C-alpha cells in the first residue's frame, strides 16, 4: 500500500513530505492536483505551502481541484487523509473538517517550534491521549475558528492542542482552545497546522514529526518498502 502526496500549484512541502515518508520508510506516489486518481494509494497527504498563492482565502481555490473528488472517494472507501498546514486549510475549505482558519491574531507569520499534545485518541490510529510532539509551525492563517453549525465533539474532535515546554496551554496564533489540529471522529481525516515533515531528522531540529508520521502510517496500513 502507498501514500499519495498531492501537489497543488503553490505547494512547497510536497517533496518534504515524500522525503519524510521515505525515511520511515513508506512507499509514496506523487499526484498532481488535476489528476482524478490517487494511483492506488490507501492514504493521501495534502501538504503545506500556498496552493494557488492563497488567493481569495488560503485553501479556497484548491478545495475545488479535481483531485479532491478522488480524496473524497478514498475517504468514503475507508482511506485516510492528512492535511498539513495549507493542507488543513484545504480540508476545512472543502468541508472535510468543520471550522475555518483565519489570520493569526498576532498579524505575524508565526514561524517557531511548538509542542502539541494529543487531546483525543482516534479509532484505528496508535496516537495516545496526552502524547506530545515537538513540531515547527509556519503559517499566517492558523487561527482556528469553530463552525457553530458543526461543533466539535460530534463528527469531529479537537485532536491536537498547542502546549509550551512545560506542558501548559500555549497559543501562538489566537486559535480557539489552543487548537492545533482537528480530526474526523472516525480518524479518517486529520488536519493540523504544525509540520511533521519538517521534524523528520535530527539535523532539521528534531525527529518528532517522523514519529508522528510513523504512527499515522501505521494506522493507514501502509506497507514498509
Amino acid at each position, binding site marked *: 500500500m502507498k501514500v499519495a502526496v498531492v501537489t497543488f500549484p503553490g505547494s512547497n512541502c510536497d517533496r518534504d513530505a515524500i522525503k519524510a515518508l521515505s525515511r520511515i520508510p513508506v512507499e509514496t506516489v506523487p499526484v498532481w492536483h488535476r489528476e482524478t486518481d490517487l494511483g492506488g494509494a490507501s492514504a493521501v497527504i495534502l501538504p503545506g505551502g500556498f496552493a494557488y498563492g492563497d488567493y*481569495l*482565502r488560503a485553501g479556497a481555490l484548491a478545495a475545488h481541484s479535481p483531485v479532491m473528488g478522488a480524496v473524497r472517494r478514498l475517504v468514503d472507501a475507508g482511506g485516510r487523509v492528512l492535511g498539513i498546514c495549507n493542507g488543513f486549510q484545504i480540508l*476545512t475549505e472543502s468541508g472535510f473538517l*468543520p471550522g*475555518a482558519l*483565519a489570520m*493569526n*491574531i498576532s498579524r505575524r507569520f508565526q514561524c517557531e517550534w511548538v509542542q502539541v499534545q494529543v487531546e483525543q485518541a482516534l479509532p484505528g490510529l496508535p496516537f495516545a491521549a496526552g502524547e506530545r510532539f515537538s513540531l515547527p509551525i509556519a503559517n499566517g492563517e492558523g487561527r482556528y475558528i*469553530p463552525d457553530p453549525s458543526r461543533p466539535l465533539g460530534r463528527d469531529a474532535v479537537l485532536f491536537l492542542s498547542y502546549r509550551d515546554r512545560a506542558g501548559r496551554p500555549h497559543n501562538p496564533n489566537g486559535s480557539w482552545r489552543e487548537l492545533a489540529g482537528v480530526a474526523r471522529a472516525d480518524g479518517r481525516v486529520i488536519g493540523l497546522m504544525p509540520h511533521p515533515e519538517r521534524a523528520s531528522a535530527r539535523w532539521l531540529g528534531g525527529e518528532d514529526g517522523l514519529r508522528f508520521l510513523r504512527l499515522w502510517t501505521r494506522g493507514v496500513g501502509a506497507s514498509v518498502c
Partner: protein
Amino acid sequence: MSRMNIVVHLKEGVRDPAGEAVQHVLRDMGFPVEHLRIGRHITLELPGAEGEDAVRLGREMAEHLLANPVLEQFSVEVRS
C-alpha cells in the same frame, strides 16, 4: 449581460487583525476611526443572466467559493 459587485466581509465577532492594524495607523495619522473592517470586493460580468437569475447565480458563487460561511458574510449587487 449583468455586471455584479460582490462584497465579502468578516462576520461580526470574528476579529480582523489586518483591519485593527489599519485602524491603528489611521488613528496615528489623526483620523478618529472606529470599527474598521477590511473586506473583499469582487466585480464580474455574467453574460446571459439578468435580474433575479443573476442575483441567484451571484449568491451561489458567493456561498460556494467567494465567501467562507464560517467567517464571512456577503452582499450581491447586480446592474444589468
